[in-house]
């Protein structure tokens, strides 16, 4: 197979123009890095954004945010998400046979959907799904050829192309024969052609090259210090992030030719960002980041309306207006139907989910006051909601980390959980006051009278202050370096399926700079997709497996 090394430095130089300085340390050797400097995957140093230098050095912490890790990096091998499974079948066979199939659940890394860390041990659900999809595909393909009489020829003409698209690879003659034998043996045993065809389709739908995204990198060896993806792998990584499916011909060509013509790749990415699918990418990011379900809880009613409000709001702010990410928190408008207008106590708009400017009396501004956010992060008893709401602000907007509660303390009374002697104060003095900022909203996000007081952010960041409501908190977010740094980490994690490490310093810095410059999500996407990290693979040998 022809492979192409991705020249990330050329791409970086072309697109991001971050100042690079000399290297004072190499990862994994134990040398000390200079303040504000980390190293890129192949050893080059990167200048960290001003004010957060310590976070790029791999040691210590700043504002309670742990510095980037210096531990070995491992690029996750993922199984396809449900929507990727369906889209891949659709692309390969030009069929919607898998669109409604019941598939095993997607997993999460704790924030975003990614089937990398789930440890799935039972793939029976995939066998069931594949059996069903194979049956549907066989019915569709049966009329296209004389399968019983001309099995080999039919396999070559009708099955080989979609199978190669499904598996994202070219089949060798041996592989083709192995798959075809599933069909021909069934025919020889007297099976109807449709059943025999179904067997072959089941075989390819169970192939690990379809079900997983396995990247081997240039040379195909384990690469603890990083290796470039092949052009084919890079195109797949890009395409699955943007389109949930295998790359089209244009993207494959652009990725393969990125060395000779880096501009073509950037142009192709620009074109893909205009695709409708990018709207879903952004929704998946925001809904995962802020703990809002990506799907509505029902087809109608309050929960459906609150979901629709937030989804329209996010798309309008980030995609239609191309506003910076921080405007999600400060926008003085939203998109309401009658249900939401009544829920918020504001006049209903003329049309369903029209843009509504929120009056000051509504105590609403930005996504932190959306009922979807408030109910997804605090549909509990009031004092329990404090915890969840404080926790999500602390962990998702400012990248703090709370340890698990000590054993046996789940039922500590609220009055004592912030007492120094309770064993709980370390966390609760952080999250409870933050959660109380939202105390005027009940578990469904409706306004109630009476905040608890003693509320504010006590993270030790540049945003610390007493706040009387979420609006006051939101006003400070656009100026917070801690927020921008955390948002950059979240965006990196969403894109790569792993936390950024010191070796990713240049990539993370580029993303962070876009956020500081009030760039749009289109700028963020390009910063991510053209970053060195996005075309690198890290893997490690195993002593336990295959030795």
């Amino acid at each position, binding site marked *: 197979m022809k492979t192409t090394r991705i020249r990330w430095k050329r791409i970086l130089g072309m697109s991001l123009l971050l100042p690079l300085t000399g290297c004072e340390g190499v990862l994994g050797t134990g040398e000390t890095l200079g303040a504000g400097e980390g190293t890129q995957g192949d050893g080059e140093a990167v200048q960290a954004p001003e004010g957060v230098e310590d976070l790029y050095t791999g040691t210590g912490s700043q504002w309670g945010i742990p510095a980037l890790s210096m531990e070995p990096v491992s690029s996750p091998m993922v199984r396809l998400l449900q929507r990727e499974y369906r889209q891949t079948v659709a692309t390969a066979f030009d069929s919607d046979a898998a*669109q409604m199939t019941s598939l*095993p659940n997607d997993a999460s890394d704790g924030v975003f959907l990614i089937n990398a860390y789930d440890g799935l041990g039972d793939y029976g659900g995939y066998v*069931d799904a594949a059996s069903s999809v194979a049956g549907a595909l066989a019915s569709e393909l049966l009329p296209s050829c004389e399968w019983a009489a001309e099995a080999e020829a039919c396999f070559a003409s009708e099955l080989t192309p979609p199978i190669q698209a499904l598996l994202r690879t070219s089949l060798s003659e041996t592989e083709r024969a192995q798959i075809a034998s*599933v069909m021909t043996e*069934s025919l020889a045993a007297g099976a109807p052609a449709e059943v025999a065809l179904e067997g072959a389709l089941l075989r390819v739908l169970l192939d*690990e090259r379809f079900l997983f995204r396995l990247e081997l990198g240039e040379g195909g060896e384990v690469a603890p210090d990083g290796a470039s993806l092949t052009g084919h792998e890079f195109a797949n990584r890009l395409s699955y992030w943007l389109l949930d499916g295998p790359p089209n011909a244009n993207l494959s060509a652009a990725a393969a030719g990125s060395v000779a013509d880096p501009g073509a790749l950037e142009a192709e990415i620009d074109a893909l960002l205009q695709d409708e699918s990018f709207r879903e990418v952004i929704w998946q990011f925001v809904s995962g980041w802020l703990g809002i379900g990506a799907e509505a*809880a029902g087809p109608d009613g309050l929960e459906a309306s609150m979901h629709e409000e937030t989804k329209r709001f996010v798309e309008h702010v980030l995609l239609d207006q191309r506003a910076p990410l921080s405007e999600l928190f400060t926008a003085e408008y939203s998109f309401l139907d009658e249900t939401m207008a009544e829920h918020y106590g504001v006049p209903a708009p003329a049309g369903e989910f029209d843009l509504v400017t929120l009056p000051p009396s509504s105590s609403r501004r930005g996504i932190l006051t959306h009922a979807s956010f408030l109910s997804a992060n605090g549909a509990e008893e009031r004092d329990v909601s404090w915890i969840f709401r404080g926790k999500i602000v602390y962990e998702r907007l400012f990248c703090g980390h709370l340890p698990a509660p000590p054993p046996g303390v789940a039922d500590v009374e609220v009055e004592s959980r912030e007492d120094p002697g309770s064993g709980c104060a370390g966390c609760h003095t952080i999250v409870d006051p933050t959660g109380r900022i939202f105390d005027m909203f009940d578990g469904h996000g409706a306004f109630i009278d009476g905040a608890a007081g003693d509320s504010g952010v006590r993270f030790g960041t540049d945003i610390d202050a007493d706040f009387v409501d979420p609006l006051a908190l939101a006003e400070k977010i656009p100026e917070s370096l801690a927020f921008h740094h955390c948002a950059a980490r979240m965006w990196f994690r969403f894109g790569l399926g792993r936390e950024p490490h010191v070796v990713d310093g240049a990539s993370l810095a580029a993303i962070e700079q876009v956020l500081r410059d009030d760039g749009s999500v289109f700028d963020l996407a390009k910063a991510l997709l053209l970053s060195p990290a996005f075309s690198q693979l890290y893997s490690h040998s195993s002593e336990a497996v295959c030795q």
Partner: protein
Amino acid sequence: MNQSDRMKLSRRGFVQAAGTTALGVTAGSALWASLRQRALAAEPGATKVIFFYVPEGCAQQAFWPGGGPGDLNINMSASIDGKNPQSKAQSITTYSSADMGTYCLQPLKEQEQLLTLISGFDNLGRNLEQSHLGAVRAALTGSNGGGGAQGSLDYHLGQHLQGDSVFGSIFSSLFGQHVLNNLTGDFGSPIRTPSGAPGSPTWNPVTTYNQVFPSGIQTEPGEPKIDHRLHARLRALGSTRAHLEAVKCQGGAQAQQRLEAYLASIEKIEEETQALVNADGSPVPEVDVSVDIPDGWTNISSANEYWKNHTNFAKLSKIQIDTTVAALALNRTRVSLMQFSASGNSNGVNGSHYQTLGIQGFEGGTQDHHLGHDPDPVRRRDQARVFRWYYEQLNYLVERLKAIPDGDGVMMDNTLIVCCSEFSMYNHRGTDMPYVLVGNPEGLFKKGVYLDARRNGNQRSHSDFLLGLMRALGMSNTSFGTSSDPYSGFLA
């Protein structure tokens, strides 16, 4: 009496005495003539276990008997209307309610002498940072919630009891695919593979039916036909296995581990499929155990996604139960884990499944996550009502098992139903897990009683309960999960 003794007894004698009543047919009828030709499980009277898993625990005051431990008397006058059934972080024995106690159990009044209630166990997995995750992980593994290093109890009992049945254990799940912000099997389902990895809930019990009965259930005697689809499936699995064996060492450690896990799962499914092929010629059962599945539903690529439709919840529940009954009756397995909905389930395409069940007195739009959190008295009452509805389904299961001949009695005689959950009550609490045992295989258990398992007034780990079950059912394990102290207070 041991199992080999049972096998020597004439099943026909029993059928003539009792089967007619259960089936509503008379000796000498045409149907009776055909029934006499049929055979049941290959090993009549073998012990069987069913796990009946319902999420979020229950409303404690509406569940436990008001009079405290002792002989069980389900109070058919108990009511929760207008009341607020409490669930507290203290032993139920200190705040049980005479007015509300056993309200949830009322559908099981006829089965009262088959029941064992046991309070006093605490699932400490709920102390994990993510309570739902920890509690679910620990529910059937007996772990502390930090991850299961072993399979769930259904797996272990399945290995122990499998005999000549096809599957060690089967698992079915229902309506939980949209667990809030975390859709994993790890979070949503208590089933774990031998390595502690999460199982693969599909939230559609018809997929389990398809796995266990890929050729359907033969209801009339006759020459079995070759199931070409099953044979083709076996070829596809074999080819997949061979390919995986050749490529499993690709990539780095994580990739290799995933491919190893995938290969192991494919190998297991291939073995089960081979066993199904071998079982093609199994005789039809003495009673009709076919599962009533609407036309088109065995196609799980169905465009109408019937399994996500909340109005189908009751029908899918019945399919789930009937599939378990058929699987036990036809010797496909001897252990079944049935999961109804999921912990923290609220954020779905439609989370309204409890609203359409016609539950008497149901007041609100209650979903599972509400059951687990919301302190509103309406939710507390609705939780009791939902739990009561589940126990109506449990009663249906018991009646089905009573109607099917097995060994020298009926299947219920040889079956233990373990009612379980991951929490004991709302607010992520785990004290007084709502454990109920139904049935008494081999006369092992105290029956018609409510027991409290606390020791010196302290709750015991729920893993003691799970280990106690293993020991009671003949396993020799000295530890399970965090326990090396099996509970034995429920033994006769």
